[in-house]
């Protein structure tokens, strides 16, 4: 049955009204967005907001999308279209049509014929003019332009925000490196521990991306390091438990074996803990214990080792060397390299921190050139005659980058050192002799050194700097060592590590410990 022309007209009119509505709502959205943009940018000059422009633009787009969505959902009803159509000269015919379209009485039929005739002669859809609120659009454009202008006005809050943004960008660079580490792990992830690690790194990456201070970022990295060490510890304990279970109650097991295992130095203590060869009877007992251990809920890492041990036991071919190799291999899986990379990232971030490091007279100086302080960097060689003195060119016989991990009075220790049985945090410090003419304010010199030690073909970048004090490496080093040791002694050093640390610092100090010889 052919539909009445009024039906088509109403549908077209409805579509036109809908389009107009969406357009006007979009303009309204633009107006609201522009006002929001302006107010936000104005506010950002009072209170620092990082990435304000980007955030505000996203928010403005979101507002615009909301308005457009409202328009899409607010589809006009047929009745509404009829009312609008009638207002164009149809004298309420469309409204009557909607109600009586199914009525077949003679009067209504005549009405329908009359309506058809009128619609054919009057294009209602064309007659309906879409009204665009250009005024609102203009106002929105004006406010947006004003916002842009206001954005570029200088203010303290904006400056602070920009600085935070710069810091965040630098931290994001570190986050990218974390992501690379994570992606490498994904390729080789096979067990629960690796998956835990990947999750931890992913969380760290996300947290770093939202950090706006180096200190905060360094803290996040420290927390992640703790978590990874925790994963490591859990793995180790699980393995210890399993191995203790396997070797328990056998002659091969020394009393101190378990304690040695607990010292987290399994491969070394295997020499102490176990007899050299395992008898057949021992191996059978190991196998029996092993089967019991396999039924227990150990992690996949531990189960791997147990399977390998099982395979060897099945051939009666297990010995201490093979066992040591298996455990060592497993230990190598432990995320030592990840921890090191995280430590490096943390140190890089802390070096970027505003407070920098103390110089000889106790003032803070920045660790980077672009802060305008007097720093230079060189790679040199350590002289044979004096380990601590650096020379350029061919006098030395072992090259070193002066990067003693000593806390040079840097106040920003990581949080991990406080109250925990871990190593205290040490800052790296590169302190080098200055090249170039005395009194020159040029720094950051790259060039070749001739035999006499002068720079040739130098490329120097003038930066804003003031002449700093020229520090002799030895004096600075001594100061850092002294302060570093004080810093180290602030923290509780675990017994098992005390000897190592003492040994370490004594080597650094040239055999002295805080000015006193070590005994």
């Amino acid at each position, binding site marked *: 049955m052919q539909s009445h022309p009024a039906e088509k007209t109403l549908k077209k009119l409805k579509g036109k009204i809908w389009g107009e509505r969406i357009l006007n709502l979009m303009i309204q959205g633009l107006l609201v967005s522009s006002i929001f943009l302006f107010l936000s940018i104005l506010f950002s000059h009072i209170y620092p907001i990082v990435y304000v422009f980007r955030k505000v633009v996203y928010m403005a787009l979101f507002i615009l999308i909301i308005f457009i969505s409202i328009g899409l959902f607010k589809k006009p009803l047929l009745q509404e279209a009829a009312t609008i159509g009638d207002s164009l000269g149809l*004298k309420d015919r469309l409204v*009557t049509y909607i*109600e009586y379209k199914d009525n077949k009485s003679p*009067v209504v039929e*005549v009405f329908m014929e009359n309506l058809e005739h009128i619609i054919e002669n009057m294009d209602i859809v064309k007659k309906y003019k879409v009204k665009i609120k250009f005024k609102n659009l203009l106002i929105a454009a004006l406010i947006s332009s004003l916002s842009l202008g206001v954005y570029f006005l200088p203010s303290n809050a904006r400056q602070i925000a920009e600085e935070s943004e710069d810091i965040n960008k630098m931290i994001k660079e570190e986050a990218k490196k974390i992501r690379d580490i994570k992606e490498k792990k994904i390729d080789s992830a096979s067990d629960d521990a690796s998956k835990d690690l990947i999750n931890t790194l992913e969380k760290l990456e996300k947290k770093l991306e939202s950090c706006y201070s180096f200190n905060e970022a360094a803290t996040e990295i420290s927390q992640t390091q703790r978590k990874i060490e925790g994963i490591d510890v859990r793995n180790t304990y699980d393995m210890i438990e399993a191995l203790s279970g396997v070797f328990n109650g056998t002659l091969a097991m020394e009393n101190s074996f378990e304690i040695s295992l607990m010292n987290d130095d399994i491969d070394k203590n295997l020499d102490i803990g176990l007899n050299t060869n395992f008898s057949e009877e021992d191996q059978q007992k190991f196998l029996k214990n092993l089967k019991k251990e396999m039924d227990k809920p150990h992690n996949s890492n531990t189960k791997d080792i147990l399977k390998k041990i099982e395979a060897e036991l099945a051939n009666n071919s297990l010995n201490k060397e093979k066992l040591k190799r298996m455990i060592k291999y497993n230990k190598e899986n432990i995320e030592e390299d990840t921890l090191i990379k995280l430590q490096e990232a943390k140190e890089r971030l802390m070096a970027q921190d505003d407070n920098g490091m103390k110089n000889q007279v106790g003032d803070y100086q920045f660790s980077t050139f672009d802060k305008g302080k007097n720093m230079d960097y060189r790679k040199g060689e350590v002289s044979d005659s004096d380990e601590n003195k650096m020379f350029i060119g061919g006098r030395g016989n072992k090259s070193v980058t002066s990067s003693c991990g000593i806390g040079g009075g840097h106040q920003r220790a990581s949080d991990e050192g406080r109250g925990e049985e871990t190593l205290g945090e040490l800052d790296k410090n590169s302190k080098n002799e200055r090249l170039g003419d005395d009194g020159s304010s040029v720094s950051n010199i790259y060039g070749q050194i001739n035999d006499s030690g002068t720079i040739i073909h130098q490329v120097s970048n003038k930066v804003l700097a003031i002449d700093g004090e020229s520090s002799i490496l030895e004096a600075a080093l001594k100061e850092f060592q002294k302060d570093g040791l004080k810093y180290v002694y602030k923290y509780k050093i675990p017994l098992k590590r005390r000897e190592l640390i003492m040994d370490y610092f004594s080597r650094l100090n040239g055999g002295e410990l805080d000015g006193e010889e070590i005994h």
Partner: protein
Amino acid sequence: MEKRYIRNFQQSFEAIEEEIKKAIIGQEEIVRNMLIGIVAGGNVLMEGTPGLGKTQLVKVLSQVLNVSFARIQFTPDLMPIDILGTVIVNKKEEDFGFTFQKGPIFNSLILADEINRATPKTQSAMLEAMQEKTITVGGDTYKLPEPFFVLATENPLDMEGTYPLPEAQLDRFLFKLKISIPNMEALSRIIDITTGKQNILQIKKVADKEAILKMKEIAMKLPIALPIKEYAIRIMLATHPQQSQFQAVKDYVKCGVSPRGVQAMIKAAKVRALAEGRFNVSYDDIEDMAYPCLRHRIFMNFRGLADGVDTDDIIKDIVKRVK
């Protein structure tokens, strides 16, 4: 019902209107509303000073429609039997019998002139007949002719010794029309016709009672959309001081329009729509018919009467703001 009658409604209506306008000059709106009233099946109350052509109007109308016409001049001593008729004794040969002698009310078009001069008893006899369309006399019921239309007039000048129609009786009239003095041009033409310079045109019979009844039937079946119906109802409700949001209504109106008022508006609006060549009722029809239908159904309180507030002003305010 044949569609051609429906399609030709406007033509028929305009033909009647044009014919009446030949004799009644300068009262186009009154003529149109009168015709609407007749087709809608109602009665009309007209207010106007003497000599404005009310009798002539009804006379011409009866000629054009070829229906019987009677004029009743209401006086204070007029009795109901003078209007309705009475039973008279009739001698037939040797027997006496009673015959009902029909009164002037047994005509299609009645002019009830100065109805406010008659006593309430006589008024109510007339009005009851208007309402019921039947007369009961001596135990017998007599049907009034179809179409039956009463044009009642009220003289606004001579109020002394008169009996103003009560509210309940006023409600029975479909319309209240206010006839005013014609303009200069119209008066000039009237004088030319009545004082001999120009001969009055012969009024032709253009329609008959069947045509009027057919038109009435068509009008009753005309479609009206719900929003428009609701508009009429909202107007009526707005006239009641208890429900109205209009301050003027709250201040000046004692009693608002009854449901009969809405019925009258819609009936009249349907006829108006057809008269304009449309086959549906529009908001404009309701708006236009609100004044004649409602002005005699809104009753002012003392304050309204004292302040001389016109019901037309209240209706105007309501009609615009309710839309």
